[in-house]
């Protein structure tokens, strides 16, 4: 049996750009950033004060009767996004389909916020005990498990934790399970919520967060802007989706992954380039067929020139005909959820023919010499795209998409 095509038939997204797909696409397609002074944590003594927070998310609305206390914010994002995605897909869940539905979630740090509150109780407040749900709220698989219980889906369910590549690895694994016929459906994506003083201090210590804003590939860029959120997509065999008359946002058609085997935080050019090539090969796409790249584009001095060189190495002369943007300039860097937010951005780009811009771009950096769609969205019909995620630890994951 030839491998099956895989359709995206449902999307749910909770991000700094908004609490619905409509709000998110409106902000992406107009290039409206959600970067602002951080409100949930006092950052007055930090070297940075700006971030991209999810605003207006009321957990009680999603988890009434005190159930919200059982889920860390990252798992709340997982479930909220999965519910929206499933509703959006309008798929009818038979008992057989429920058992044949995979759930693969990405998260870099899971419920670290919950355990940090426990430590605060122990060591700051001097209480002799921590909240009894600290363990089940902290575990990184909480998001995937809660989706499974909340929606009654009982197929293969797990969490992938590969730092900033987590969601791309998760979506890629789910894509392959659907393509191979291991499952008939999947919920896949990522979620992250780590705005606590301990986590922000830890990022400050890495010296990679910008004191102003996120300006990927731009001159005078000073680093990343931290973000949070969650996004889930529903994946189905393309033919099954078409047979039931489903709305098809686009196709995931390839997945490539490599590791640098080099350095904890310094990327190589070869690792990302090999991952992009692997995704193209897996998709059966020629480099010339790609019209848009949703770049990893963190805005750090280190990532952006290396990623630009890697793109040039893979695409050759075609690199100058590509639109490349980093939507992290809009929604910030949501670590293990980043790939999921960006998968949504990429498939919506293919669907609507509008390339989201790289915001906050000030001018050309001699080391970053591609077309980054600076500051203004661009109308362009694109047939295929890739979305890059490159993680600390040198782990690279690239997804390839096709328009339908």
């Amino acid at each position, binding site marked *: 049996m030839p491998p099956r095509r895989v359709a995206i038939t449902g999307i749910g997204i909770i991000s700094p750009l908004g609490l619905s797909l409509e709000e998110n696409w409106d902000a992406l397609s107009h290039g409206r950033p959600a970067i602002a002074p951080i409100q949930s944590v006092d950052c007055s003594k930090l070297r940075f004060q700006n971030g991209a927070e999810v605003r207006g998310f009321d957990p009680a609305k999603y988890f009434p009767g005190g159930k919200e206390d059982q889920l860390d914010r990252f798992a709340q994002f997982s479930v909220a996004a999965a519910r929206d995605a499933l509703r959006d897909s309008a798929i009818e869940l038979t008992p057989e389909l429920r058992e044949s539905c995979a759930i693969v979630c990405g998260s870099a740090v899971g419920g670290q916020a919950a355990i940090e509150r426990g430590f605060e109780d122990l060591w700051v*407040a001097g209480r*002799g005990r921590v909240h*009894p749900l600290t363990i089940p709220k902290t575990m990184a698989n909480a998001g995937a498990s809660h989706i499974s219980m909340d929606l009654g889906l009982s197929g293969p369910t797990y969490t992938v934790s590969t730092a900033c590549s987590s969601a791309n690895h998760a979506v890629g694994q789910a894509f392959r399970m659907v393509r191979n016929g291991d499952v008939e459906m999947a919920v896949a994506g990522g979620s992250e919520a780590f705005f606590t003083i301990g986590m922000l201090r830890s990022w400050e210590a890495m010296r990679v967060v910008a004191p102003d804003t996120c300006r990927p590939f731009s001159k005078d860029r000073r680093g990343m802007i931290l973000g949070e959120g969650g996004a889930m997509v529903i994946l189905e065999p393309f033919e099954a989706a078409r047979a039931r008359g489903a709305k098809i946002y686009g196709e995931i058609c390839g997945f490539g992954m490599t590791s640098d085997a080099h350095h904890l935080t310094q990327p190589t050019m070869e690792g990302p380039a090999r991952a992009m090539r692997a995704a193209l090969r897996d998709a059966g796409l020629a480099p010339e067929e790609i019209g848009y790249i949703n770049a990893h584009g963190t805005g750090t001095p280190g990532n952006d020139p290396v990623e630009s060189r890697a793109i040039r190495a893979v695409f050759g002369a075609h690199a100058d005909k590509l639109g490349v943007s980093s939507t992290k300039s809009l929604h910030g860097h949501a670590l293990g959820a980043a790939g999921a937010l960006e998968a949504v951005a990429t498939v919506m780009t293919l669907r609507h023919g509008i390339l989201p811009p790289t915001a906050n771009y000030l001018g050309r950096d001699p080391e970053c010499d591609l077309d980054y769609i600076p500051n203004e969205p661009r109308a362009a019909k694109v047939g295929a795209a890739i979305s890059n995620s490159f993680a600390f630890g040198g782990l690279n994951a690239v997804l390839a998409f096709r328009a339908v």
Partner: protein
Amino acid sequence: MSDPVAEKVIATLASVKRIPADSIKLDTNLQEMGIDSLDVFSLVFELENAFQISIPDDDVRSIKTVNDVVQGIKKLLDAAPSGASPSSAPTPAS
């Protein structure tokens, strides 16, 4: 209700389940009001903080109604040395 222990228990329950206190009676069954095993953990944690007591695991397992909780706590409060919290009780924040 003039029973301060019962009032405190009901207020704690209401806060854990996000429901009005006047919807909870002494004979209300915890399971029927949607308290599952995880909610019991949270409830016990809050009650231990509210009353400055330590509730043994065996007592937690036998709770069925609101009144069971109230009576159990009264027993623990009576057993505690007067004027001092049991040594295993949580220390207040400040």
